[in-house]
């Protein structure tokens, strides 16, 4: 099967970065571990990514860059993240250019394109302050208007790449206390600054991402030019929240990279570790747990892929969708990796030996994704507040051909995406959520499938039962939200957080179903057979309430076999299993195979 066009760049990057198990490669597990141990900035890896031109993917084609879609973009980030999250998080601060692409003027966009394409000047996002995290309005760092531009005073901390960056996106107070229009956003170029007017704050020692430059900055009457202001005075919070809708969505790719390595590394161990006259993989429960981790990854893969495609199509809905993706994917995969540690056993606790101890590093590094860029709590809160509206909008939504068309564009992976238009990002989706509004029609579609010819009758039976349960759960949630009790919920009520989590789970179920329906004919036989979908739905429903395992054991076995197959052929654990960097021995095998078939 030919690789989908949008994944070719990632396959090329895979070949260029090489096998992370080969110690000679720059982005090898060995190097990633030694930077981590030494708390050293991953400079060689960053240099390599620049040499390979990955920076050009942060610039839209209209400004001379190589950005085509967030789907392609995310697949590149995932390739880096599966090798070293510290490198991925360090390099990907370039994504803060989103603020300029979304809110900047022509001049600022041209300047940003030039910086990203032709210099190695990195960016950082300077929002947080020591005394104010998620509560941005409470920020104290202030910008005052001067004759030449603005004057900054205050501190930003903890900031990834604060010290090692050329540009800083600074959110600063320009207005009254708790006014939502009291913040403005500045893209500060350090070259414009008087070196005496700002100080880098010392690096913080961290639990994970130990090689990263997590530091801060202090401004003392620091003069910045007028052209630093992005958008209008008072537009800071609005721009920040709109750009977060993009970057929060992209966080899913980082978690997927981490989970891929955690599973691959554990599987490697399980396949080779001999005990009781067999291997760990031969132990039914170990195999089951590996298979379940694989299904978790497929669920999150569907969600991440749909979301990055959705950014191009249903852009206005991302106050809902980005919160779902940012909460669900990191939270789910963090748990998945935790569970895998049980299979890896003693080695999960070691900072050396099995694959240089990469598992524990992934476990530590991965824990940051659910925390930065808007924590799980912040996203659940933002989502919870919108649930009454999504319920209502879904109730009022009838058949809608425009929505069907959007869903087809998002989910059919063979369709070309329209170019992304950041102006369409909106702080409020007005209850719209195509994935969920299209759930009922996806169920109809499922009911219309021909049992036996189009899909195995038993599989279809399970899918009908499980999706029906998901729909019942959604209706029950709607009834809770829309009933007198739901309407009386305080915006800070912890009940709302629970409902938001449930909504994410059901969003995951609907997403997997759409993905399957639209790509059964496009992707491979394992995907088309639908057993994975039944496993995924059962696993998701299990998060709502305890479920007996009602699926044939063969489905679990096939999942484990599929996993092993992807592992043996160096394919990504994904519904689109793109070709990873080949290992040397496997390269030889392939030549051998080819010679034999000739």
């Amino acid at each position, binding site marked *: 099967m030919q690789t989908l066009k949008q994944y070719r760049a990632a396959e090329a990057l895979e070949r260029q970065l090489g096998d992370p198990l080969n110690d000679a490669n720059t982005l090898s597990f060995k190097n990633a571990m030694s930077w981590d141990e030494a708390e050293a900035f991953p400079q060689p890896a960053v240099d390599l990514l620049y040499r390979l031109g990955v920076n050009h993917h942060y610039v839209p084609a209209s400004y001379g860059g190589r950005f085509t879609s967030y789907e392609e973009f995310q697949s590149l980030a995932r390739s880096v993240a599966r090798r070293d999250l510290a490198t991925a998080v360090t390099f990907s601060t370039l994504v803060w250019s989103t603020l300029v692409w979304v809110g900047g003027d022509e001049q600022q966009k041209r300047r940003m394109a030039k910086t990203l394409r032709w210099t190695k000047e990195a960016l950082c996002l300077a929002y947080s302050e020591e005394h104010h995290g998620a509560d941005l309005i409470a920020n104290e760092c202030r910008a005052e208007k001067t004759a030449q531009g603005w004057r900054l005073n205050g501190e930003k901390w903890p900031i990834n790449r604060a010290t090692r960056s050329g540009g800083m996106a600074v959110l600063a107070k320009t207005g009254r206390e708790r006014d939502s229009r009291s913040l403005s956003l500045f893209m500060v170029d350090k070259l414009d600054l008087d070196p005496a007017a700002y100080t880098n704050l010392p690096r913080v020692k961290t639990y994970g991402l130990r090689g990263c430059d997590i530091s801060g900055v202090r401004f003392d009457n620091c003069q910045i030019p007028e052209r630093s202001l992005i958008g209008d005075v008072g537009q800071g919070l609005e721009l920040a929240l709109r750009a977060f809708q993009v970057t929060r969505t992209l966080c899913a790719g980082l978690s997927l990279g981490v989970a891929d390595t955690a599973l691959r590394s554990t599987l490697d161990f399980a396949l080779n570790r001999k005990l009781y006259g067999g291997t760990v993989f031969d132990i039914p429960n170990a195999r089951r747990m590996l298979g379940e981790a694989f299904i978790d990854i497929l669920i999150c893969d569907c969600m991440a892929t749909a979301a990055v495609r959705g950014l191009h199509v249903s852009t206005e809905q991302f106050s809902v969708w980005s919160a779902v993706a940012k909460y669900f994917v990191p939270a789910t995969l963090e748990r998945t990796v935790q569970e895998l540690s049980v299979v890896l056993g003693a080695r999960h606790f070691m900072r050396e030996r099995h694959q240089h101890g990469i598992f524990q590093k992934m476990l530590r590094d991965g824990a940051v994704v659910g925390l930065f860029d808007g924590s799980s709590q912040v996203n659940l809160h933002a989502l919870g507040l919108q649930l009454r509206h999504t319920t209502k909008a879904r109730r009022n939504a009838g058949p809608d051909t425009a929505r069907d068309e959007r869903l087809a564009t998002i989910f059919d992976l063979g369709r070309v995406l329209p170019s992304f238009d950041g102006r369409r990002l909106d*702080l409020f989706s007005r209850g719209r959520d195509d994935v969920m509004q299209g759930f009922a029609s996806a169920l109809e579609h499922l009911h219309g499938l021909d049992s036996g010819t189009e899909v195995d009758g038993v599989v279809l039976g399970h899918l009908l039962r499980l999706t029906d349960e998901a729909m019942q759960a959604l209706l029950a949630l709607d009834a809770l939200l829309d009933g007198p009790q739901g309407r009386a919920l305080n915006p800070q009520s912890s009940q709302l957080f629970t409902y938001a989590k449930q909504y994410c789970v059901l969003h995951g179920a609907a997403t997997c179903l759409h993905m399957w329906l639209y790509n059964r004919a496009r992707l491979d036989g394992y995907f088309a057979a639908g057993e994975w979908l039944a496993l995924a739905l059962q696993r998701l429903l299990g998060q709502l309430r305890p479920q007996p395992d009602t699926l044939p054991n063969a489905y679990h076995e096939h999942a484990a076999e599929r996993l092993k197959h992807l592992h043996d052929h160096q394919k990504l654990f994904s519904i689109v299993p793109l070709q990873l960097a080949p290992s040397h021995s496997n390269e030889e095998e392939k030549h051998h195979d080819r010679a034999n078939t000739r």
Partner: protein
Amino acid sequence: MTAQILAKQTDPHGVGLAQHEIESRLTDMLAETLRIAPAEIDVSRPLPHYGLDSIDAVTLAGDLEDWLNVELPSTLLWDYPTVEGIASYLGEALRAQPAQTAHAPQDSQGIDDDLLDHLDDLEPGQIDALLDELIP
């Protein structure tokens, strides 16, 4: 920002409501969100003083949309942070919106040719809104 309603709605509610009626309804909605008595809300006091945070304010704009059956800017309550301010914005926007003049701001093609032919019949508020839309 000129008072305007973003999307075409066939049936906006609340047209013809008096300013004080809008204010009193708004006060009730806020009181409900903030869990305080309506009497505690001073129509000229900025809402953040009552603990309404930025995201709550966006959601509340959504509640207003539901009530009036119109589409409003999501940041309406950021730009008009008092009950009085919101009510006067809404009053003006609703008056400027006898059905066919509602419009989406970014979409100048969306303006009815019909409407351009009848410029003379428009009220000042409508003309302002139209100009706003044509001149970026």
